């Protein structure tokens, strides 16, 4: 077996362990639901989250496998392992998990509830990469032989890592805001769900008016929407700064390689669109009427654009950034 083949084995092993970790995170969320229900009915013992601890441990193991897969691919190729779609996906998802683990370690809050979201996304992307995007190692085309490949793509991947966590937090923030709005609404009166619920509030307003349902209780173990919003903002802001740098580094490199720093190439267009959406998010967050639910939606839309840029644009759009190798 050569190094690349070992790398592939490591990728699949990482996938298997990520899948186990994902299941453990999901089971933990389910269990938290029941524990909360018990807690709400009077029992006071804090739920022991052994499943979450197992999930984190599995994630770390999978991350180590993932890291070694990426490093081995790089060593086998004799260059940085991010020069085609397969490698972008392997490195990108590695950065997503890395940022997740770093935030888990350093955030003051317990963010393990994000595990199923993050690992679900990683499983999807890394799985698709391993099954559909895999390509044999090829040398770098002249256009990619530059130090900016190392910087530009790596910073972009890291930025996506932060955006992912920010998006996950924003999703949970929306769920929390909805729950809070219902809890705050007088139980007997059927009123439309307040501002926080947003567009899809109508779906469950009848249920909410009857009191707080057990299902929603899973979220009581999770910080309130304001705390989530603040944290989502801090994480997304790091992503935004890295994204700004990605855009500029890309422009400097484009000047060197293509003779112009900006030419509205499809990938440049989408990088710009993402930047503008997140700029809108930053502004929204400091504007009354937009802060909270609406800004959270912007963070989610921004992340959807990131995913679109990474998948659809890379694979189907014509342009100068045609390095997917597919």
């Amino acid at each position: 077996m050569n190094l690349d083949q070992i790398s592939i084995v490591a990728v699949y092993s990482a996938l298997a362990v990520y899948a186990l970790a994902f299941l453990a995170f999901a089971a933990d969320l389910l269990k938290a639901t029941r524990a909360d229900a018990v807690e709400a009915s009077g029992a006071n013992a804090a739920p022991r989250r052994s499943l979450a601890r197992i999930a984190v441990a599995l994630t770390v193991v999978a991350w180590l496998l993932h890291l070694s897969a990426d490093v081995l691919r790089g060593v086998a190729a004799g260059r940085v392992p991010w020069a085609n779609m397969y490698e972008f996906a392997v490195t990108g998802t590695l950065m997503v998990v890395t940022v997740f683990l770093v935030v888990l370690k350093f955030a003051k809050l317990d963010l393990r509830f994000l595990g199923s979201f993050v690992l679900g996304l990683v499983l999807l992307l890394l799985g698709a990469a391993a099954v559909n995007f895999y390509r044999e190692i090829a040398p770098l085309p002249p256009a990619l032989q530059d130090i900016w490949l190392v910087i530009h793509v790596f910073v972009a991947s890291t930025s996506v890592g932060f955006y992912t966590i920010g998006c996950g937090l924003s999703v949970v923030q929306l769920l929390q805001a909805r729950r809070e709005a219902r809890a705050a609404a007088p139980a007997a009166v059927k009123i439309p769900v307040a501002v926080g619920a947003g567009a899809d509030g109508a779906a469950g307003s009848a249920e909410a008016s009857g009191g707080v349902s057990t299902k929603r209780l899973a979220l009581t173990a999770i910080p309130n929407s304001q705390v989530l919003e603040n944290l989502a903002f801090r994480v997304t802001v790091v992503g935004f700064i890295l994204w700004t740098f990605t855009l500029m580094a890309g422009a400097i490199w484009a000047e060197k390689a293509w003779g112009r720093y900006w030419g509205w190439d499809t990938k440049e267009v989408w990088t710009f669109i993402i930047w503008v959406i997140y700029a809108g998010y930053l502004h929204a967050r400091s504007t009354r009427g937009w802060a909270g639910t609406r800004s959270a939606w912007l963070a989610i839309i921004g992340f959807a654009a990131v995913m679109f840029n990474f998948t659809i644009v890379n694979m189907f759009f014509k342009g100068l950034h045609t390095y997917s190798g597919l």
Partner: protein
Amino acid sequence: MVSYQPSNNSDASAEPAGADPHRPSDHVDSAAPAERAGEASGAVTQPKLGVIGWLRFAWRQLTSMRTAILLLLLLAIAAVPGSLVPQRSSDPNGVSQYFASNPDTAPIMDKFQLFDVYSSAWFSAVYLLLFISLIGCIVPRTKHHLAAMRARPPKTPARLERLPAYTERMLSDGASIDDELDRAAAYLRRQGYRVDRLGPDAATGSAGSVAAERGYLRETGNLVFHVALVGILAAVAVGGGFGFTGQRVVVTGQSFVNTLAAYDSFNPGRFFSPDTLTPYAVTLRDFDVTYETKNQSALGQPIDFTAHVDVTDQTKVAQPGQIKVNQPLRTHDTDLYLLGNGYAPTITVRDPAGKVVFTDSVPFLPQTANLTSVGVVKVPDGLAKQLGMVGFFYPTQTVLASGAFTSDYPDLVYPVLTLNVYEGDLGINAGAPKSVYALDTTGMTQLTGGKTGVKSLELKPGETAQLPGGRGSVTFENESPSGTNANDLSHSVKRFASLEIHRDPSQGWVLAFAILIMVGLALSLFVPRRRIWVKALAVSQLADAPVLQFAGLARGDDPRLDAAVGAVATKLVGEVHDLPERTLET
């Protein structure tokens, strides 16, 4: 403009009544906006606005944060079609193809400038409105910030314990309140705070206090970020107009002189003057290519292209230089980029008497990764009728199952040139410009290939073929250097480099503004702006001893406010002893 203020910030309550809610909380208007802008919409008697009033109203709407957000989102949406539809600026061939395959819809789309999205009226309108809104926000905020930087820190509030970060410490016996407050002031000053030492105030029970504020750089960074955005736009709009972009194909051994006439295509900026072209010449001495030969899964993939050039001007002898992808040659205020390369077979045409009527290395444009290339040869004079040839060049020829030729390797292993010959009117006598890469065969008779029944001319380097009907001959010259083994054809065909020559005087400015954007952004997001107050109470409610109160207020996102307040308290008085710490969660 962004102050990055969370919506629940308690500072909001400190806003002057009537302030525009879309302004940052530290924004102060010169007059109450509600009166000027006629926002008292619910009022029964509305004051008449008049023209000035409506203009003011429109201006306030445009510069409001809500409008800015909508314009940002609109800008994002407006940018999308340019990635779905081919653009003239980046993909002119794609536009032609689109017109050819959608003859009905394309002209309508063109009316809406969908092939020029980024220079279209509607896209420009969005970003120009956005920038006007931005400037309308920067100016008052800059004024306000300049005033704030000169102002003293805000006075100590009456009830510090209500602030979001709060702690208190009992002073040890015998400690002097004044000394403690002086120490606090000195400590905070060392920490980079602007400090104001205030005396006792009977109304609030204060026995003296310290007011401190830090983090003005946050707003400075914010302003720098936004001003630099305007700077980039200005640099691109104005500076870019003085530059130019030109393309030129140069065959090895040939030269190119930096004059307007020498360019194959030339795109001047709005304010460009041809006098600004520096006279110099570039000779393509040699062109090196390296293709992958070992890795079976990437066989023939390009590894390296290097153009070896000599640069000459009036004063100096030839300066050797090289141009590679990712390594432009910067000389004489211009940048030379290597955008492409290919083969330029040297073709000689002789008349029936054997006299040379045409000889040139003709650039053939690559069509595939393995450099199957297409070129056109035009022989206007010297033969009975004008002659045109459409040629295919295969650096490593192979025959497909269908019988068609193709190339399966980009380098010269088994080079073959095929030519379809046409006779008649080339259409160039009228003086109208014609592309050298296309042959208009209307009014011409095909002599070889296609349906003529005569086989296309098929040549290997060094071979000569007779034109049908004794019209003369065509030779595919072997350009291998003398002394080369006859079987080694690796240098038998000349190569060309497709160069882009480019001057953009604004590029340095754009880079400088880009760096300012990064710096400004980082400052505006990471520098915490906070106010800290230390107040002494001669007698506290909890104990019969003097107490020092410490409180902090964040302006914008500040996760470390509690820690900062706690650190000041601990530094000055030490850890909590008998008083419960009442630091609140943010």
